[in-house]
């Protein structure tokens, strides 16, 4: 057993280097970083350009939409306060304007902020009169968390991790056949099943490192839009730690599940397009499958493990509703066990295939 472990470590040393530093794997990094970039851009816009509000003073109270709509230009500051109460925040500023004679003068102005359920109202008050009103959408931490959960399920797991694993795991054997270098492994004193395990584990390490780091960076980008108090509250009171661990764990399990599938596909098929399309359709059609067949799908287990369920909003297109619906959820323990069992089953079938594998590069 220790001899096999030594051999597995030797295979992993070779393969991890190839998986991380292969030039043809550059697109996998881009795929993993794409959602990080999107979330980071959103946070940057929120913090620097106030495209939408992400913070709210702790002592502020939320106003109704009707209350916010009742304020208009021309009202005096006192009228506004009488109607809405003291602002949640207020900031005085100096504004340069032209007087009636065309001379530039500096006057004192004030920004008054009020917060509603899903938007905020900013009043530009000059000389005690509301000069302009500005309304902005407001993003709560919960909304951002929901947005992240949606992107995580729709894009990250179903597409980014899926195709990333396709690129990493299908190349473990098929790539070496195309490079005509697989025979060096097969001519070494190592059982082919041990080689399979070594390559699989190397792929899991590479995929897990790339995609869990991506998931962690995405979460960090989402958090960066909010103030430290909000983030601290999320981690201390709102199960933040368990949710973050769950997201990272689901990502790692997705790498194991899809990795085993594509490792097997790399041994069975020459062209990755056909198995990729077949698995993608199979995964998408999971909600439609009979109960028994559902269990042979990776997404079936992952959906049950995602910490924030993506509800089927009535406004969602039917296809999206179908993709996110989880009509038959299972317990997290069963989901983890089921996914690992599925991966082991695929690896066992792959080990039968690799025992009979023949090297005939000319037909590749």
């Amino acid at each position, binding site marked *: 057993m220790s001899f096999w472990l030594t051999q597995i470590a030797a295979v992993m040393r070779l393969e991890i280097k190839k998986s991380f530093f292969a030039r043809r794997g550059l697109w996998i990094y881009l795929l993993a970083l794409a959602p990080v970039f999107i979330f980071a851009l959103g946070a940057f816009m929120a913090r620097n350009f106030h495209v939408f509000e992400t913070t709210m003073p702790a002592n502020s109270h939320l106003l109704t939409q009707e209350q916010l709509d009742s304020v208009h230009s021309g009202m005096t500051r006192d009228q506004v306060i009488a109607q809405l109460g003291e602002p949640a925040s207020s900031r005085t500023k100096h504004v340069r304007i032209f007087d009636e004679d065309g001379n530039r003068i500096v006057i004192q102005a004030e920004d008054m902020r009020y917060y509603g359920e899903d938007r905020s109202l900013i009043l530009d008050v000059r000389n005690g009169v509301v000069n302009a009103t500005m309304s902005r959408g407001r993003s709560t931490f919960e909304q951002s968390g929901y947005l992240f959960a949606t992107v995580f399920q729709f894009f990250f797991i179903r597409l980014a991790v899926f195709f990333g694993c396709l690129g990493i795991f299908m190349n473990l054997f098929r790539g070496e056949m195309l490079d005509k270098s697989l025979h060096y492994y097969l*001519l070494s004193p190592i059982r082919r099943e041990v080689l399979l395990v070594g390559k699989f584990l190397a792929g899991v390490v590479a995929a897990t490192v790339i995609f869990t780091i991506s998931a962690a960076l995405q979460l960090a980008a989402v958090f960066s839009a909010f103030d430290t108090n909000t983030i601290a509250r999320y981690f201390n009171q709102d199960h933040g730690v368990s949710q973050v661990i769950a997201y990272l764990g689901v990502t790692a399990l997705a790498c194991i599940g899809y990795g085993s599938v594509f490792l097997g596909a790399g041994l069975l098929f020459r062209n990755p397009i056909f198995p990729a399309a077949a698995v993608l359709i199979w995964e998408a059609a999971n909600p439609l499958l009979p109960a028994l067949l559902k269990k042979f799908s990776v997404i079936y287990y992952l959906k049950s493990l995602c910490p924030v369920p993506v509800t089927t909003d009535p406004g969602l297109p039917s296809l999206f509703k179908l993709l996110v619906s989880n009509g038959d959820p299972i317990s997290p323990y069963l989901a983890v066990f089921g996914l690992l069992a599925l991966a082991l089953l695929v690896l066992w079938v792959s080990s039968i295939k690799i025992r009979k594998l023949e090297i005939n590069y000319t037909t590749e």
Partner: protein
Amino acid sequence: MNDQIVFDNVSKFYGDVLGINRVNLSIPPGITSLVGPNGSGKTTLMNLLTGLIRPSRGTVTTLGFTADQPEQLFKLVGYCAQFDSFPRGLTGYEFVSSYLRLSGRDAAECDELAWQAIDRVGLREAATRKAAGYSKGMRQRMRLAQAIAHNPRVLILDEPLNGLDPLVRSETIALFRYFAQEGCHVLLSSHVLHEVDIISDQVILMNGGYVVAEGNIKGVRSEIREQPMQIVIRCDHPNTLASRFFQEDHIVEVRMHHDKKGLLIKTSDPDRFFTLMNHVALNGHKLESVAPVDDDVNSVYEYLIGGEDESKS
């Protein structure tokens, strides 16, 4: 432990295409050359031996082990295959040492063995460069280093002299001889027949997926009865000898050498001819030399495979 490489009624078909058919071989230690035209089954035979392909019928054992016992077999076997390729991104040294690690050896031992092998093929200076940038000859030598790094008892080499310059060729041949002298099997295929002739202890001639002949080249030649053996005699009085030879029924042809100091004889019975030569010598004829001229691989190849060969040099 069995010291033979044994093919027992081995056939290999690629769909409907014949690879090799009903091959029975028992190969002893020493240098054995596989000779035959393209598509004759030489590489198929080597790939079967190393388990890169599986026989459709029959069994192959190497020193008692089959390809289903890789942990034992590949400690004994090194194969320098025909594929001129390297794993991506590795230097020559990394290529040799990384695959050595698969045998379970520790890093220090692999390091030592790798450098030993690299030194044997004379590539120490280039070993830290990426293998992808090597010339054809360097790639060939580095692949050879990888095949010999674990000091195998069976060395299998598919066209090992391709791309090597004359100096490196002779060094490589010396390396093969060293392995053979150590009691190892060196099984190689080559199209360069005069080199095969020089280095081989035995040959296996293949054509169309069949083994046409096997064994010591002189023994193989003597088995080819339908082709009279050609012998050159250098002597003082070739005319007298020629008239003597015409009296023998096994002498098929006698031709005078252009310098009038020798004869080219063709005989259908070499044994009777050499007995006759003993009598001739005893009767006082002064013979400078008597030497067969068609008991080399080239001639045997010509007789057994002949015009079908397109690749013979």
